[in-house]
C-alpha cells in the first residue's frame, strides 16, 4: 500500500490523550483519591548487606493515626521475581537485606507524615555482613554469598555461545583489534515517582491502580505473592509519567499497599520519594566489555568475539535476559559471519539493574561502534563508507540464528551523511584540527539496530502476546479494549489510529480503554519495543473482522458484492457509486441486526523463530529497526568540556504510523543517549548511592540538548502493522558511540567508557600532551573463567525463516 492511500496512517495527528495531558486532567496514580484512603510508607534498610535479627513494630503500631504495620512475617513466605528463573525477591525482607533501600516494613496511617514517623519507630536489629560493591569484590569473596543460587558464588548467570570458528576468522583477517570498554550504570529517572493505590474490598477482591508498564505481570505475580486467586485480583495501569523500563517489575510498594489495604480495610496509597526511586532502579547495568574483531583490508568483518561482565546488583530482576541481550543484537547490524559471546552477571549489594531503554544492548553497541571507528582509522577508510559496505543483508539469518527482514540501514547512512554534511566536515584521519583557541570541532558516526518486540514472553506459554477486543456502537463509535500501557509513547493513540484506518472512521470516533486486567485482553507490557507492532497487528485483525461483517451487511442492503465495498470518510459504499454509500453508523446498525452484538477480538503472537539452542529465545523479534547517527560537537582542550551542536539521526521505522510520534521517540532517545554519554551515572560510595537526587544525578536540561535532526526511513516491513517497526529504543543506541567518535575526531583522544565526563577528556588530553596513549578507559578485566561455550553452527547468510507466519494470523 502506498502512503497516499492511507487516510489516518502517516498523518501527524495529535495523540488521543494529548488534550487531557495539556489541561492537567490526566489522572496519574498519585492523583487518585478514594474515600477513607490511608497513606503508606516503607521502612528501608540502611545496610547494604545484613542479617535481620529482629524487628519490633510495637512502638510504631502504638502511634496514634497508624492503621497497620507489616513486616515480611505478615506476607506469605514466597519469593518472587519477574523471570521464572530468578525468584529471589521479597517485598519485605525476612532474613536478610541485600542493599541499602531493601524494604523491611510498611505502615499505613491516616496521612503520609504519620506513616513516615511510624516507620522511624520500627526497631530493626541488623547483624551487618560484608558488603560487596563491585564485580571484583563479589568474585574475590566467594565466602560471602549474596544469594545461594546462580552459576557460581555471587555469579547470577554465566553464558557462553559460539557460532562458527572465531579463531579461524581472526586468522583470516588483515586486522584484528582487541579493545576494552566500560559502560557505567545509569537510571531511568522518570519524572513521575512510582505510586500505587490498592483497594482490598469487602468482597475480598483486590484492585491495584499503579504506575506500571506491565499490569499483566503484576497481576500474575500479585496473585502468587499474596496467595489469592488471580481471578480476584484486578490491576489497572494508571497513565504512566515516564517509564523507560523503570516500572517493569512488581515492586515492594505495590505489594505492601495491597497487604496493608487487606489488613486495615481501607484503600491505601503509597508514593515513592525520589530517593526511593533511585533504590528501586532496575536500570542500565554497568558492563565491562572485551571485544575482539577481525577485519579485512576492505573493512569486512571476519568474526567477532565479545565478553561482557554485568554488575547486576542485589537481585535477578530481568538480569538473565539482560545478560543474553548484551550478546544478542550486535550481529544484527553488520555482516558478521562468525560470532562468539561470553557473558556473566555478578550479584553485588546495590540496587538491582534491569531493563532500561535499549535493554542490555547500548553497552556492546558502544564497544562495537567505537572499535569499528578505530579499525577504520587503521585501515585508512572513511568510517561512514566502511559501515555502508558491511550493512547486513535483508531477509537472511545472522550468525546467532536471528531472522532479519527489512533493513533500511544503508539508506539511513546515506541520509545522515548527506544531511550532516559529513563529506565536508569529516576531513580524514589525522586532519589538522578545526576550531579556534582551545575549542576544537569534530564529527562522529555510529549505527545500530534494535528488536521490535521480544519473541518470547517472560513466562513460557502459547497464548497471544497482545490482544484487542473491539466493540462497535450503534452511534458509529468504536471501543477498543487492550491491555497495552501508555507510558507516553502513544500506544493508546496507535490503538485508535489503526482501527480508524481499517474502518474508514476518524480516530476521534475510537475510544481506547487500556490496561485493566478485568476488562482488557492481555498485552504483555510496554517493554522491548513490542507494543505498536503487537497490539497494532491485533487491533488491525479485530477491525478487519468487524469490517468483514459490516461489508456483508451493507452488501446485502446495497445488493452488491462485499468485495466491491470500501470504508472511508465514515461511510461504507462502492467507490464508483458513492452517493449510495451508508454512514458508518448505519453500517453498524445493519451489521448488528444481521450478526448480533458487534464485538471482535484480535490476537497477536510473534512468529516462532527461537534459535534451536539453549539461550536462543533471547534476541528473536518479528523485525529489527535500524539507525544511523552523526554528531557534531566541540571540545574545549583546556577544560575537557564537550558541547554538542547537532545530532542527525536517521531511523528505519518500517513505516511511520504517525511521524510526529516517531520523531518524538527519536528525539527522546537521542536526549537520553546524550545524558548517558556525557553525564548520567548511578554510582556508589561507602555502600550507598552517591547521588540519589534530581540535582546530583545529572539529567540534561534544554541548555545541554542540541538541535536534533530526525530523518525517517520507511522500509514497509511485512511483519509490522502497515509495515511499522519500532522507534522507542533503537535511536538511543548509536548516540553514545557517535559522541565518543566525534570527540576523537575533534581532539584525538579515545574515551572508552561512558559517561564521557570533562575530567576524563582532560585526563586523556594530558596523556596525549605527555606523548602517552591518549586513551581513558578500563585497564584490567576481572579474573573470571567463562564456562565452555555451547558451539552452534553459524546461520549467517542463510535465508530468513518464513515471513508473516505467525500464530492466530
Amino acid at each position, binding site marked *: 500500500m502506498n502512503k497516499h492511500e492511507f487516510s489516518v496512517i502517516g498523518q501527524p495527528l495529535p495523540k488521543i490523550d494529548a488534550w487531557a495531558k495539556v489541561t492537567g486532567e490526566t489522572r496519574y496514580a498519585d492523583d487518585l483519591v478514594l474515600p477513607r484512603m490511608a497513606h503508606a510508607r516503607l521502612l*528501608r534498610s540502611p545496610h547494604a548487606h545484613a542479617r535481620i535479627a529482629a524487628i519490633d513494630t510495637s512502638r510504631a503500631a502504638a502511634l496514634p493515626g497508624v492503621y497497620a504495620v507489616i513486616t515480611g512475617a505478615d506476607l506469605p513466605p514466597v519469593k518472587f521475581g519477574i523471570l521464572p528463573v530468578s525468584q529471589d525477591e521479597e517485598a519485605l525482607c525476612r532474613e536478610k537485606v541485600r542493599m541499602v533501600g531493601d524494604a523491611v516494613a510498611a505502615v499505613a496511617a491516616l496521612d*503520609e*507524615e504519620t506513616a513516615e514517623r511510624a516507620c522511624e519507630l520500627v526497631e530493626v536489629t541488623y547483624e551487618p555482613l560484608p558488603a560487596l560493591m563491585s564485580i571484583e569484590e563479589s568474585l574475590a569473596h566467594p565466602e560471602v554469598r549474596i544469594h545461594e543460587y546462580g552459576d557460581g558464588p555471587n555469579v547470577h548467570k554465566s553464558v557462553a555461545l559460539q557460532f562458527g570458528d572465531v579463531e579461524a576468522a581472526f586468522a583470516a583477517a588483515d586486522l584484528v583489534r582487541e579493545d576494552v570498554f566500560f559502560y557505567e550504570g545509569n537510571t531511568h529517572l522518570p519524572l513521575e515517582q512510582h505510586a500505587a493505590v490498592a483497594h482490598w474490598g469487602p468482597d475480598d477482591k483486590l484492585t491495584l491502580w499503579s504506575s506500571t508498564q506491565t499490569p499483566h505481570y503484576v497481576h500474575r505475580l500479585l496473585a502468587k505473592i499474596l496467595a489469592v486467586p488471580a481471578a480476584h485480583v484486578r490491576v489497572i495501569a494508571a497513565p504512566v509519567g515516564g517509564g523507560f523500563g523503570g516500572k517493569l517489575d512488581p515492586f515492594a510498594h505495590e505489594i505492601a499497599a495491597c497487604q496493608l489495604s487487606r489488613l486495615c480495610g481501607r484503600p491505601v496509597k503509597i508514593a515513592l520519594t525520589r*530517593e526511593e526511586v533511585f533504590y528501586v532502579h532496575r536500570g542500565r547495568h554497568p558492563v565491562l566489555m572485551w571485544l575482539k574483531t577481525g577485519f579485512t583490508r576492505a573493512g569486512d568483518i571476519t568474526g567477532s568475539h565479545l565478553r561482557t561482565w554485568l554488575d547486576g546488583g542485589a537481585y535477578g530482576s530481568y538480569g538473565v535476559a539482560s545478560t543474553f541481550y548484551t550478546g544478542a543484537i550486535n550481529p544484527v547490524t553488520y555482516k558478521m559471519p562468525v560470532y562468539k559471546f561470553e557473558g556473566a552477571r555478578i550479584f553485588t549489594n546495590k540496587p538491582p539493574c534491569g531493563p532500561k531503554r535499549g535493554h542490555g544492548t547500548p553497552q556492546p553497541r558502544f564497544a562495537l561502534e567505537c572499535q569499528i571507528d578505530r579499525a577504520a582509522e587503521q585501515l585508512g577508510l572513511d568510517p561512514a563508507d566502511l559501515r555502508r559496505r558491511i550493512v547486513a543483508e535483508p531477509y537472511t539469518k545472522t550468525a546467532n540464528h536471528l531472522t532479519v527482514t527489512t533493513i533500511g540501514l544503508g539508506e539511513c547512512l546515506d541520509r545522515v551523511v548527506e544531511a550532516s554534511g559529513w563529506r565536508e566536515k569529516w576531513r580524514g584521519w589525522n586532519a589538522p584540527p578545526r*576550531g579556534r583557541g582551545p*575549542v576544537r570541532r569534530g564529527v562522529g558516526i555510529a549505527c545500530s539496530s534494535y528488536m521490535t518486540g521480544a519473541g518470547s514472553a517472560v513466562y513460557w506459554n502459547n497464548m497471544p502476546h497482545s490482544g484487542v477486543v473491539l466493540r462497535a456502537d450503534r452511534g458509529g463509535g468504536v471501543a477498543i479494549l487492550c491491555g497495552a500501557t501508555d507510558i507516553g509513547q502513544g500506544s493508546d493513540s496507535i490503538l485508535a489510529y489503526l482501527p480508524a484506518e481499517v474502518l474508514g472512521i476518524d480516530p476521534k470516533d475510537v475510544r481506547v480503554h487500556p490496561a485493566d486486567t478485568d476488562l482488557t485482553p492481555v498485552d504483555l507490557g510496554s517493554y522491548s519495543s513490542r507494543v505498536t507492532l503487537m497490539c497494532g497487528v491485533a487491533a488491525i485483525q479485530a477491525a478487519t473482522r468487524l469490517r468483514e461483517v459490516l461489508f456483508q451487511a451493507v452488501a446485502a442492503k446495497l445488493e452488491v458484492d462485499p468485495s466491491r465495498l470500501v470504508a472511508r470518510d465514515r461511510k461504507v459504499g462502492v467507490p464508483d457509486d458513492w452517493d449510495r454509500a451508508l454512514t458508518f453508523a448505519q453500517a453498524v446498525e445493519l451489521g448488528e441486526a444481521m450478526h448480533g452484538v458487534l464485538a471482535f477480538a484480535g490476537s497477536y503472537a510473534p512468529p516462532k523463530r527461537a534459535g534451536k539452542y539453549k539461550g536462543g529465545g533471547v534476541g528473536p523479534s518479528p523485525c529489527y529497526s535500524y539507525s544511523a547517527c552523526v554528531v557534531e560537537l566541540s571540545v574545549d582542550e583546556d577544560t575537557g568540556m564537550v558541547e554538542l551542536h547537532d545530532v542527525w539521526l536517521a531511523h528505519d521505522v518500517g513505516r511511520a504510523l504517525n511521524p510526529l510520534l516517531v520523531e518524538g521517540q527519536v528525539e527522546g532517545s537521542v536526549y537520553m543517549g546524550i545524558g548517558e554519554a556525557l553525564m548520567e551515572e548511578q554510582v556508589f560510595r561507602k555502600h550507598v548511592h552517591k547521588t*540519589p537526587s534530581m540535582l546530583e544525578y545529572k539529567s540534561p536540561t534544554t541548555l545541554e540538548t542540541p538541535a536534533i535532526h530526525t530523518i525517517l526511513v520507511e522500509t514497509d516491513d511485512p511483519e509490522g502493522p502497515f509495515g511499522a517497526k519500532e522507534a522507542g529504543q533503537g535511536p538511543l543506541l548509536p548516540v553514545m558511540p557517535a559522541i565518543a567518535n566525534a570527540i576523537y575526531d575533534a581532539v584525538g583522544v579515545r574515551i572508552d567508557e561512558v559517561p564521557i565526563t570533562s*575530567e576524563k577528556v582532560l585526563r586523556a588530553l594530558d596523556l596525549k600532551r605527555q606523548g602517552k596513549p591518549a586513551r581513558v578507559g578500563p585497564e584490567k578485566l576481572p579474573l573470571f573463567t567463562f564456562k565452555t561455550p555451547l558451539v552452534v553452527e553459524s546461520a549467517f547468510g542463510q535465508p530468513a525463516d518464513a515471513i508473516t507466519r505467525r500464530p492466530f494470523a
Partner: protein
Amino acid sequence: MMRLPPFLYVSPRTVAEAAKAVAEAGPGGMLVAGGTDLYPNMKRRQFEPTTLVGLAAVRELRGVRGSAREGVTLGATTILSAVATHPDLLRHYPALATAAGLVSSPQLRNMGTLGGNVCVDTRCNYYNQPYPWRKAVGFCMKKDGDICLVAPGSRRCWAVSSSDTAPVLWSLGARVRLVSASGERTIPIDALFRDDGIEYLAKRPDEILTEIVLPPAEGWASTYLKLRRRGSFDFPELGVAVALRLEDATVAQARIVLGAVASQPRPATKAARALVGQRLTPDVIAHVADLAAGPARPLDNTDFTHPYRKKMTRVFVARALGRLAGLERAGRDEEELA
C-alpha cells in the same frame, strides 16, 4: 512526597518586628526569605526549626537603590531574578548580575533572594542528602553525627561555600548591614564569613542581614565565571569573581575571590597583588592564574573530581582575566577558523 517538618510560622511586617520575633524564638528559631535553600534542607531534616520567622512580608527589605557613582544598596530579600536583570547592575556591576543570573534555575531565581544566596548553607555531598541516606552512611558532624565523612581524621567540617553571589560581592568590596533586636552593625562582607563548614557565618542567629551595600563602581570592571556540569540547576563547583580598576590599561586595584573551593569564599590575595601595576598581557594573566590556583583546596565532596576543580581554577581565572582584558573569545557563538 518529601514534606516539611512542622513549625510555627511568624510573619512580621517590619525589620524591627522581625528582629524581635527571631530573638523571642530563641535557639529553635530561624529566618527564612525565599526558602529555596532552607526548605529543601528542612525536608531532608538538616534543619528542624521550631519557629520560622518569614521575611516575605517585610517590604523595606526589598529593592535596589542608589547609583554607580555613589554606590548601590540592595535590600536583602530582593529576588535573584531582579538582581540579574537590573539595568544599573548589568551595566556597572556586571559580575553581580551575572552571578545572580547563574543561580540554579529561572523559577528558583524568582523565589530565592540575594541575602539568601549570600547566606546559603554550605554544601557537601555527604550532607545534602535525605535523612534515610544520611542514616545509612552514618551521620556527619554538620548534622546528627560527630565525624567528617570527606576527611575522616578532621575535627572541622569541610562543607563547601556554594554561593554564586558571595565571592562576587567580596570582590566588589561590598558591606553588609546586620540588624538585631539589640542593635545593628555594618561590616565588610569578608567579615561575614568563617572558614568552617558548620559555623560558616560570623552573623549571630538573631541578626538579620538587611542590606548589601556596594561601593561606587566607577573605574571598576568585574566578571564572574562558574564551573558546573549543566547550564542550569547546578550549584557552583568553582566560582571565579574578579574585579579590577584599570588606569590607562594598567591594573590599579584588583580583587580575585574564589567560590566553592573552601567553606567560605577564598580571596586569591597574592594573585591579585601580582596584577597591580601590570597590563593584562597573556603572560601576566598566565602568571596570575597560577598564583590564584594556590588557595583553592577542593575536597571530594561535590560534583566533579577535586583534582579537576583545582585544575580548573587556573583555567577559569585566566579566562576571567582574559575576558576583562578583552582577550577572551566569546566561546559558544564563535565562528570557527577552519
